[in-house]
């Protein structure tokens, strides 16, 4: 075995574009030999696509997949030394368990004795000794899952790919299988690449977690890193419970957010817009006088291991996990230790989108007119007698050659249920939402493919069809050269 390749597999600048518009862009990932890597993300984030490209079911539009340093991105699945455990098992219903497991070995034309030995051994590994002759339909879901794992492992793949393998099992069985899979990984030393949307599963089993959203990697790190040091609001929100606040740095390791001043450990320059993330268990309830911020308890829920206490502090809502209960309606103080605050430099959420100049030399977006002065926007132009734009030399401008960019802040956009209202500029569907202490940050997919980020203090539902109102006075236009 060559030692030069510490990374068993590398995905380099992988792009995959589907006909329906979904895409994975410039995806880069390295997996070390023997690692247990989990790709974690909500459904539709591209995690299964990534796995399918490693397995060979989907070919990347661009980029290389290096296995032990050799590009395999265009090889068919049967030529790759990787095996997959499918989400719904995909066991062959017309074969018994022995034939299912032996399928891969038979393709390799292995001797019958050897096949029998290997199948027996792998059945022991998955705790199904003596099941060779049973038919698939007599097995429970958990047993089918074990057969699926055995069928993949018996081929001794270099990498085992698992596509949400525990998704169809009940909670208890899932917990058991998590432990068993982890034990198998430690025993066999095979590299596992595991895809799931279950953050707890990812945190329990993995050496490394890759958090994905919308076809992009959000963060790669150990479970501890991902949990304690999320790189952005998406990761913080997706992994565990979080309080997320927008704020500003007010001094060296000092930040102001949620209506209070806090000492923190991240050294970010003064005046920087930040997003602060605080895990509910890192907030301590104190007397009102001792607290860094104060608020009134609005709900207390017993969760077995702890109480989940919600406190309304001004316009911010703070969620706290505590072993001590609180009384609804009480005024309390809250403190956070500096290392309990995670500061991230705020992402710029300004919505930027191109608008067109139409044949009548009016600005429009989504087929609707935007009333703004083009003569002011495009320097040195004026309207002629036909109301067309002309430049200094009196030549009529070609709309094709004018590119105008519009920008609007998330808090300036309003949402409405009445999608047919006259002031609605474009319709869209809510595809994501994150609570940020005093408001929700929404991602709206529109029919034009343009996503808008909208801040709104009210709770809308995921999947809601809404109309976006963009007040013209809040839109900033600029001319693209």
């Amino acid at each position, binding site marked *: 075995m060559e030692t030069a390749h510490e990374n068993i597999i590398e995905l380099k600048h992988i792009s995959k574009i589907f006909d329906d518009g979904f895409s994975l862009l410039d995806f880069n990932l390295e997996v070390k030999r023997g690692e247990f890597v989990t790709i974690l993300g909500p459904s539709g984030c591209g995690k299964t696509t990534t796995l399918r490209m490693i*397995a060979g079911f989907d070919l990347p539009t661009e980029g290389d997949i290096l296995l032990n340093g050799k590009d395999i991105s265009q090889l068919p699945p*049967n030529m790759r030394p990787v095996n997959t455990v499918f989400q719904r098992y995909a066991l062959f219903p*017309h074969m018994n368990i022995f034939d299912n497991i032996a*399928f891969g070995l038979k*393709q390799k034309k292995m001797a019958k004795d050897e096949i029998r030995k290997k199948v027996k051994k792998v059945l022991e590994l998955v705790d199904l000794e003596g099941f060779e002759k049973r038919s698939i339909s007599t097995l429970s879901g958990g047993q089918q899952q074990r057969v699926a794992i055995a*069928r993949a492992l018996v081929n001794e793949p270099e990498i085992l790919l698992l596509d949400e393998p525990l998704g169809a099992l009940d909670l208890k069985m899932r917990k058991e299988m998590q432990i068993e899979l982890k034990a198998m990984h430690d025993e066999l030393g095979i590299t596992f690449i595991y895809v799931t949307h279950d953050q707890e599963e990812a945190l329990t089993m993995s050496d490394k977690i890759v958090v994905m959203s919308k076809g992009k990697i959000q963060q790669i790190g150990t479970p501890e890193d991902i949990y304690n040091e999320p790189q952005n609001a998406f990761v913080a929100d997706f992994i565990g419970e979080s309080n997320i606040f927008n704020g500003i740095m007010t001094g060296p390791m000092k930040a102001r957010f949620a209506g209070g001043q806090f000492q923190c450990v991240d050294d970010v320059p003064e005046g920087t817009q930040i997003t602060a993330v605080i895990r509910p268990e890192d907030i301590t309830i104190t007397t009102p006088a001792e607290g860094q911020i104060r608020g009134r308890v609005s709900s207390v829920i017993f969760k077995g291991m702890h109480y989940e206490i919600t406190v309304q502090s001004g316009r911010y809502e703070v969620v706290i996990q505590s072993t001590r209960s609180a009384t609804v309606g009480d005024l309390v103080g809250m403190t956070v230790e500096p290392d309990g605050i995670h500061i991230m430099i705020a992402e710029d959420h300004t919505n930027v989108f191109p608008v067109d100049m139409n044949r009548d030399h009016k600005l429009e977006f989504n087929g609707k007119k935007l009333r703004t002065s083009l003569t002011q926007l495009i320097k040195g132009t004026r309207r002629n007698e036909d109301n067309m734009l002309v430049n200094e030399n009196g030549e009529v401008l070609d709309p094709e050659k004018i590119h105008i960019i519009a920008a609007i802040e998330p808090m300036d956009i309003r949402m409405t249920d009445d999608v047919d209202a006259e002031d609605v500029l474009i319709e869209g569907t809510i595809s994501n939402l994150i609570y940020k202490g005093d408001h929700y940050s929404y991602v709206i997919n529109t029919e034009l493919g343009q996503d808008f980020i909208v801040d709104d203090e009210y709770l809308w539902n995921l999947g809601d069809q809404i109309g976006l109102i963009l007040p013209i006075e809040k839109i900033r236009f600029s001319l693209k050269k």
Partner: protein
Amino acid sequence: MKFSRKTLGIPYALFLLLFVVIPLIVLFYYAFTNGQGQFTLKNLIGFFTDPNTLGTLFYSLLIAICTTLVCLLIAYPVAYILATSKLKKKAVIIMLFVMPMWINFSLRITALKEILTLIEGNLAYHPFLNSVIGMTYDFLPFMILPIYNTIAKLDPFLIEAARDLGADERKAFLHVTLPLSVPGIVSGISMVFLPAMTNYVVLDMLYNSTYIMGSLIGSYFSAYNWHGGSMIALVLLGIICVFTLLMGGQNEEDARTGGAVL
């Protein structure tokens, strides 16, 4: 009288009695009696000793086997391509194959006759070939649809699993797609083979004067030989029973997995 669910079954039971059980009894009665109403095995022995009836049986089997094979050879690839392709207008293409069934049968065969006459000049030269062509034309949709249904319902992950485990496209087809489409093939065969044994109208219209089972039974009855005719019908019934039993295991599987039968 108290109304129960069983009461709802009465019309069906009556129907069965009237149109299935009683005719079968009558069939048995005539098959095993002579003109004087006495029990006899002469009709049975007669069938298996008369070279004419035996010849007809083998000719029918031959036509049915050829028709079934030709149907299968055409239908499987068509069904496979239709079921696995990502064509947007798939429904339209399937409709094109099914649509002939909406047109009157004798009209279709008449049209086919004209086309064949145009190609062959005189239909009398190739009676057997013409009959197989006619039957294939008539029964093809019955072969395509069940096979299409089974393949279309096949979990695509099974093929991917086979590919993943090292099978190339050909082997994945041979070891996974083909065995799993057997229920559809069996339904198709039973829908084509049995009617092809008896459908003498196709032969008549295409000027094939050789008898097949259907025409033989007809001829016995029109000659008022009810006893002989009943025995032939009974033998045919026996063949169908054996055939169905042989295919039985598959059909049971088929019923369990949701079925390929139309």
